[in-house]
């Protein structure tokens, strides 16, 4: 199978002394795989996600995503890489409050210069699928947590990314909304979307992921594969 993510001896230090926040770590994620990254606070989960998203650069080792070595890319190329290859979902949604739901979803596509009509059609399609069509002209501040996270997922998918990165996507949601998002991620994985999911929630990892890695103090402590996604 095709490898979407390839980490070779990756380590990340935030200061020159002490132990690294992550690694050295070698890891690969294949296309269509849903990888859950679990671990206690400070274990290096978010650092791993930032490295894969090209938001940060490793101190050692190489990070390749979709066959591109991120270490060598300029900031401009990394931005292009993110908008074309990556969709990101955050714990606190990170929606832009002064843009409508539809505008938030369209934003990544607009940054790539995609035609307006195509962008709007894709956003409509996603809102329809995610059940947020009626909120298209609303502002994020008026939506519930679950609805906001659906908007965030729609925004993450608008450019049909090869890789969806989710950082504690249910962490700020109530139980019912968390369940909604969990089902959404399961559906996406079933549809063949490659996902890297950072979570404290073992139930979410079990439900969504085909593979789970557990980090402790920046090191890989456990790497397990589920037989099938429920």
């Amino acid at each position, binding site marked *: 199978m095709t490898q979407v993510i390839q980490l070779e001896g990756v380590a990340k230090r935030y200061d020159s002394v002490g132990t690294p926040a992550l690694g050295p770590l070698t890891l690969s994620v294949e296309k269509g795989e849903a990888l859950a990254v679990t671990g206690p606070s400070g274990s290096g989960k978010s650092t791993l996600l*930032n490295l894969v*998203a090209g*938001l*940060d650069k490793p101190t050692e080792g190489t990070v390749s995503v979709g066959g591109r070595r991120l270490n060598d890319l300029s*900031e*401009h190329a990394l*931005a*292009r890489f*993110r*908008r*074309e290859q*990556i969709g*990101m979902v*955050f714990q606190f949604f*990170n*929606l*832009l*409050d*002064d*843009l*409508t739901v539809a*505008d938030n979803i369209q*934003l*990544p596509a*607009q*940054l*790539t*210069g995609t035609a307006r009509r195509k962008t709007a059609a894709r956003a409509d399609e996603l809102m329809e699928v995610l059940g947020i069509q009626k909120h298209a002209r609303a*502002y994020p*501040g008026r939506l519930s947590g679950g609805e906001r996270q659906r908007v965030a997922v729609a*925004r993450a998918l608008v*450019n049909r990314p090869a890789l969806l990165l989710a950082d504690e996507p249910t962490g700020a949601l109530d139980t019912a909304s968390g369940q909604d998002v969990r089902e959404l991620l399961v559906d996406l994985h079933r549809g063949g979307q490659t996902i890297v999911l950072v979570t404290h929630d073992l139930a979410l990892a079990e439900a969504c992921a085909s593979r789970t890695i557990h980090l402790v103090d920046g090191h890989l402590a456990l790497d397990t594969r589920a037989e099938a996604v429920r």
Partner: protein
Amino acid sequence: MTRFGGGALGRVIRSGVGRRRVQTVVIAVATMMAVASAVVAGSLVVAANAPFDHAFAKQQGAHLTAQFDPAKASAAQLKATREQTGVTASAGPYPSTTIQPEDSEGRRMPKLTLVGRSDPKADVDDLDLRSGRWATKTGEIVLSESFAGPAFELGSTLRTSDTEGSSTLTVVGLALSVSKTADAWATPAQTRALASADNPLTSQMLYRFDSAGTDKQITDGRKTLAAAVPSGALLGSQSYLDTKRAADQGAAPTIPFLIAFGVLGIVMSVIIVGSVTSGAVGSSLRRIGILKAIGFTPREVVRAYVAQALIPAAVGIALGVVLGNLLAVPLLDDTEQAYGTASLTVAWWVDIVVPVAALVVVGAAALVPALRAGRLRTVEAIAVGRAPRTGRGQWAHRAAGRLPLPRAVTYGLASPFAHPVRTVAMLLAVAFGTIAATFAVGLTASLTAVGEAQDPEDRAAVTVFAGGPGPQPVEVEPGASAEGNSEAPPADPARIRAAVEAQESTASYYATTQEEDVSVAGVTGSVAISLYEGDSRPGNYEMITGHWIDGTGQVVVASGFLERTGTKVGDTVRVTHQGDTRTLRIVGEAFDTEDDGMRLHAGMANFPKAEPRTFLVEVKSGVSPADYAEKLAEVVRPLGGDAMANSPSEQDNFALILQSMAALLTLMLVSVAGLGVLNSVVIDTRERVHDLGVCKALGMSPRQTVGLVLASVAGIGVLGGLIGVPAGFALHSIVLPVMGHAAGTDLPPSVLDVYVPWQLVLLGLAGIAIAMLGALLPAGWAAKARTAVALRTE
């Protein structure tokens, strides 16, 4: 005081100042520039207020300068005059005489009043020694500063007359008498030695009176003095009111200019200091919420944030006062030259009022948002502080999103609407900067046009004189006699004309003569007239109304003449020249400030006795004026004439002073405007750092981030330009006529209508440039900010 006590509050203040270093530095720098500009502006406004009166008071100027005959009144008698009723102080008697010196090149100066004084200090007319030292021995002279220039520097020598055996004096100092009591000073012994039968010795006395506000009071004082000395001892006198009138007329044109720039500077400083401070406090709401959550009282929060704004602002204010004083030195020096007055300095109270006012503005600007923050419920403060979640500007984002522009740009364009007050402050800063730039460009163009409009004879390629060797440029003291100018027996104009016509390379020419002794019915005393022969259109003055002379029976006059005689274009005047009286019709009002605007221009054919003294020649295409003049000079010199090529006329000193002042003031105001924008964008970028992080995480490139930040000020720049250019244009059209009126003339269209469309467009773009330059630095910071860090920022 709560359990936090002063220590906790102090730590909060210190950490608040230290944590936001960039913003702290920007507040300090913006405040510094604003205060510096206010100090300069305030000083200029103060300097514009009755400059002669201030300088006169500083020097204890002489209300009356009187010359006595030493043969009729002894020194003791003259000293005793200080006891007369109404006399509050006197100085003298000083020996005084007149000399007409030659410089080291043999050029004759105008007649100078030389006064023998052993000391520049005195109870009356306390002279300012501007450079060098006072004359202490024979052979030394101190000149009035107005003679300073390449011909007369410290160390230059001059001969006291062109006669054999005349003395040689060395210029050892340059001094300024606001009362204009003399043109030069030497030791009393030297002065006495230079007196002669032609230039007899007189005794100069200087007086101050208890009442000297009107001509009548001065006349009364004079009468009292005349009665106190033997009959006929008082030879002449000069009232300070005449000097004041001349000085005020000279200074008047600069006053509207300085006030315009001064008011611009002060208003802008208040706006910038206010917006910088309130923006800084307003952007700290989240931290305020946290402080309240851990137990700070609203009052402590207010104190903490007002203090956090005051600390960098106070540093900026202190530095601004120093910088303002330094910047004011060259500007006030220029102002001194323009006014011809004594040392102008930054008024002491400006150095107190400006920083105190700045502290009040900073305090008030900080207090309003701090009070608001103090009143906010803790939860609200924390929630509000995360980002601008006010809901303001959402419509702008919807509207901008429809524009056919890149998304990063449309996102940036809508951003200012989230903070209307901050945006208005930024808009005003840009608008004021643009007003200053527009006004300065217009003023410079107008002053250049004034320079070009004066001395139209200089437009001719070659000037041929029929009056002996060509006149050498000599600085003439205003009011000093021009009798001393070099004059040789005039050549025969007909032979000069024939010589000009005989030159193959002559394309065209006209002739002119200046007559000083013409009388006009209804005008007291004589007036000057320029008479023209031939087609004088190439040398015509700029016309304010009507047209240039194109036939006999016509006269063109200046604005001053129309005003003083109550005439208008179309009226007739009776002009008498050497016994010939003609009735001439006024066909035009010319922009001519010479001779106090009283000079007439008419055709020479009106007055048969007039003869041309100067021929203004245009040479054929491809001919060098210098070569032509050299060749012609060889022909006309033996006839008693001379010829010289004209160099493009240089701008006069006054215009250059105003232009350099305008450039410096504009640079300062534009810098303040740019700093205001910089501060606002820094605050805005800080507030939006999380949103920018989100955008970058979604794939916004550094270039798009820069575009977003720049676009957020582009609209303000455009609007600032749209407001600033017409306002600057209007300011120019208001101030220039006032300046002209103060100089005693109306202004022609060439001086008033100086803006051209492309220039206005460029000036409009200046608003955008100010905004962009101010935003460039924070835009770069935003682009370079690490996305992962930005995403963690709350």
